[in-house]
């Protein structure tokens, strides 16, 4: 079991450390964060409208911006360019600073808080006299006992 755990940890570690390696698809990645502004509601690189008034210009600008920032790989600069040029709603990913950072924090803060509460509750219960005394079934009427017995059977062999 220990060997399996170590192998898993090692694999995860290797994968994570290599995660930040060079990404060849910067243009595609940034293009999938920018929305076409013609009103089609699609991502810039997915807009399939013939004669779309905006996508050709936006794609050209994306190429230019990706080339201009190739040395620094500054994705934020490219996205901010589009926010300025085409409006803040063009970029479909919130900023990672200022007020918009809250959007990124909220989901994980919720999960973390929930985890913490569960662990606290379990430990509190664990130490309570009822748990220590083992099964402390409240006396139920026979009908409910029968239903609960059926539930036990239905959820386990």
């Amino acid at each position: 079991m220990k060997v399996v755990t170590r192998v898993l940890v090692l694999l995860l570690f290797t994968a994570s450390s290599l995660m930040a390696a060079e990404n060849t698809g910067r243009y595609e990645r940034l293009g999938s964060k920018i929305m076409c502004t013609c009103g089609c509601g699609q991502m810039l690189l997915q807009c399939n409208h013939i004669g779309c008034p905006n996508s050709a210009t936006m794609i050209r600008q994306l190429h230019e911006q990706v080339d201009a920032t190739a040395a620094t790989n500054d994705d934020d600069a490219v996205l901010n360019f589009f926010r300025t040029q085409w409006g803040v709603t063009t970029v479909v990913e919130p900023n990672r600073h200022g007020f918009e950072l809250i959007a990124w924090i909220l989901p994980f803060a919720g999960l973390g808080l929930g985890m913490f509460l569960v662990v606290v509750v379990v430990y509190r219960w664990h130490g309570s006299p009822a748990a220590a005394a083992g099964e402390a079934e409240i006396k139920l009427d026979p009908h409910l006992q029968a239903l609960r017995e059926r539930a036990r059977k239905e959820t386990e062999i």
Partner: protein
Amino acid sequence: MPLLGDFCLLFALALAAYSFAAGILGFIRKDEVGFRVAETARRAGIASFFVITGAALVLVWAALNNDFSIAYILQHSNRALPTPYKLAALWSGQEGSLLFWAWLLAGYGFVLRVRHKVDKRLVATSSMVLAGIQVFFLLLVNFEANPFGIMSRVAADGNGLNPLLQYPEMVIHPPMLYLGYVGFSVPFAFALSALMMRYPGEKWIHITRRWTMVTWLFLTCGIALGAHWAYAVLGWGGYWGWDPVENASLLPWLSGTAFLHSVMMQEKRGMMKVWNVWLIFVTFMLSILGTLLTRSGIVQSVHAFAESAIGPWFYAFLMIIFVVCVAAFIKNRKHLQSENKLESLVSRESSFLFNNLVLLAACFAVLSGTLFPILSEWVRGYKITVGAPFFNKVMLPIGLFLIFLTAVGPLLAWRNTSLGSLKKNFAIPAIFSVLVAIALIPLGVKPWLDVAHLYSWLTFVLSALVITSIASEFIRGGRVLKDKLNTNLFGGMYHLTRRNMRRYGGYIVHFGVILACIGIAGQAFNQSKEQEMAQGDKLQIGAYTLVGQEYTEDDNANYQSQAGLLDVYKNGKYLTRLNPERRQYKASNQGTTIVADYSTLKEDLYVIYEGNNPDTGHPIIKAFINPLVNWLWIGVLTVVLGTGMALIPNAAQLKSPVKLTATAAVESAGGGASMRPAGARK
């Protein structure tokens, strides 16, 4: 006819209002008079179903007969529209869909009220809650979104149905979704009633278990059909865009899934009573929020209807529901005390708790991302857009954690799991998933390439863990029965499943979800290529070569179309002929793509006709290779199969049903509610 429709709506409102008011009286007065009044409320509720059915039929009749004197029919139908889509006009616009909501709710209420003998008191109070919800929707369709509004001048033809909705799946998708949304009203009504009546035990859960599962199944099918429709019709090569309206359907699904898991804890161990009651309250409120998001236009969406005045109605309704739920909870919370406590973090109970937590965290993440633009507008004065890249980044880690719990949960024992038992149960699944992790690398899944590859790789590995743990559960149980019944392993597994349909049906559902996850993980390897293709031109994508053979144009009463005939070769060998099409609908002057898809278990070759280049006149073809998409649809079908299995009674249960004795009648702690066995009369 519009007058008849209006009359039906008003009459239905009167009946629902009576059912609600008389239900309250019956709830307050617990004597014989109260019981009789509650009975009249039940009958009024049943009658309201027939009257609302009348209103819905009037609207359908108007659509079928091109009655363009009705504004709704003018806006959502036209003469050339094929008959099935005319039927779909009932739910294709705001007013009609709200009428449809009210009708489905009345339908659920009808079934509930007819089957009242299961528990007359509890059903009477639940019927009152349902009548209250019915009153809201009937007020809405009578006074704010009336589908029978009359035009001052009758037009010769209508504006037609949105062309994106003119697709067979679109005839089924909205009803499925609505059956899901509306269906959660029933367990909500039972939970609220049981709380208000301080009803003893878990009987409300036993009564609503099948309702909840069927509702969840409808919602699952609705979401899947919507995804499949998006894939087949929208022509962008994907099936889920994290659009606010898509998210709206996912929210009650996630909380409903959490509820389906956590009720087992209450049924089995008398735990998590507060949690369960609030889960179903939240699920119902999310269903209402979903309808609000879909219908009010408060968030930017490709699906949302024009901004309308129904928003304040829904805000008020949500507020009322919340206040009622909180008040009922505060007044009766002592009734919800747990009978048992968690004894260990490494136990089946805690895995249920974590599973619930992660599902709710996923729900919260989707909700916060969906509503963040509104928050941004309040705080900063402008709406930002929160789209797919955000949701993918946030939801993928949460989803992976959930898959991990799906693997681990069933292998843990109730109360406490010993280290020995952990080793025994986990050894084979862990070894198998490590082997899969290694085997994937030479197959082209390289987790070091980028985050998408890493997530896909992790999904495949964790999926292997889940599948092995499910298989080991079947095999372990099958072996025991094989020896007992003197049959082979498959016979043993069959009998095992028949004896415990709920549990093993649940495993099949998990298996289906994992197949769907594998399908989703395939997205990391998508490829696409766009090219102008004259006759004889070739487009090369992956191992496929597309050759333009012929391009045609067509014109009928409903639309004009351009289509291409493309021969497909794989590694030089002829495979098939594809026929992508682009349509321009006349009534609405909107264009749609009809996707041509060559689908295998390994990948889809997905081809769209984007239109003609205005300069050269040549067709532009876009081709995608989408790996493993079929696994998603097969996964959904497996989920449907598993849920269906879980709904079937056990073989042993069929032979020896739980005996209900007359002594089962108990008085509640304070509400005076009596619980009588099925069929017993006062």
